[in-house]
């Protein structure tokens, strides 16, 4: 199974994302922001970093890059799409998921290992976890506070579309401790913390993040 990993100018975590795909047993395919060709991939990951220098708003300029057009089309057709950190911001700017990511409430850039609970195991990216499972993966962002209006929040809660929540004190001011959400169909997932940095104990705080990548391979094999 081929998983595309997009590189925008300023992307940082594409190599780790590709490595995580390979660890999970998939084939990682590099996709370039300026190339509207998905190279026949079965799923796509938008990795973390500071695409286009985070100018204007995080993800605002990347969202209009040539590669995003076929990605948005394919996601509307059901292709699994995971946005991590900056990728989550790109998904929000592209309106593939509701809401927006804004500056951390204490203004500091955070970089630490963070506990989350996985709350929805029915998406293309979370089926390898058990419901309520606690995982430990790195969190590193300056604009990770998930914001949406009350109606959207009620919808997300009511439909079980909050896939992961922070455990303990709210690290960044996200509404309802939201760390990740999914679209209604369950193929598009946005996640602020970084599972691709936690796939083995040699390089990460745990191997808990690997589940996101084994999940999508399972979803694709059917």
């Amino acid at each position, binding site marked *: 199974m081929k998983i595309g990993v997009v590189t925008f100018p300023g992307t940082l975590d594409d190599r780790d994302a590709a490595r995580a795909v390979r660890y999970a047993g998939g084939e990682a395919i590099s996709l370039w922001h300026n190339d509207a060709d998905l190279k026949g991939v079965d799923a796509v990951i938008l990795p973390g970093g500071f695409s286009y220098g985070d100018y*204007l*708003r995080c993800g*605002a300029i990347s969202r*209009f890059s040539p590669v995003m057009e076929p990605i948005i089309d394919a996601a509307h057709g059901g292709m699994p799409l995971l946005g991590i950190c900056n990728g989550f911001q790109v998904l*929000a*700017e592209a309106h593939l998921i*509701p*809401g*927006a990511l*804004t*500056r*951390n*409430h*204490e*203004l500091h850039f955070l970089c630490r290992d963070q506990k989350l609970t996985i709350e929805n195991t029915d998406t293309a990216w979370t089926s390898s976890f058990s419901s309520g499972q606690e995982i430990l993966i790195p969190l590193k962002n300056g604009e990770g*506070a998930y*914001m*949406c*209006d009350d109606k959207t929040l009620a919808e997300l809660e009511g439909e079980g579309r909050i896939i992961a929540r922070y455990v303990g004190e709210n690290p960044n*001011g996200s509404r309802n401790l939201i760390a990740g959400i999914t679209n209604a169909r369950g193929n598009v997932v946005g996640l602020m913390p970084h599972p691709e940095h936690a796939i083995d104990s040699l390089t990460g705080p745990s191997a808990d993040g690997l589940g996101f990548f084994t999940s999508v391979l399972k979803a694709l094999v059917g």
Partner: protein
Amino acid sequence: MAKIVVDVMLKPEILDPQGKAVAAALPRLGFTFAKDVRQGKRFEIEIDGDPTPAQLAEVEKAAEKLLSNPVIENFTVRVEK
């Protein structure tokens, strides 16, 4: 040549940590007038000649599509002589 100014502000209900940090810094410098501070963005767009209604409509569209994120921000468009 005319200048079109687009001001973008976070919606009132969205927390503005930058504005809060500025509001906290002011009294440390002896400026005690501020009850609250909100921080936004200002875009100055230069065009040739006076803007036509069609051009202003285009700027409105661009402000909604790119310059602001309507989920969290409001914007205004005006012409500065």
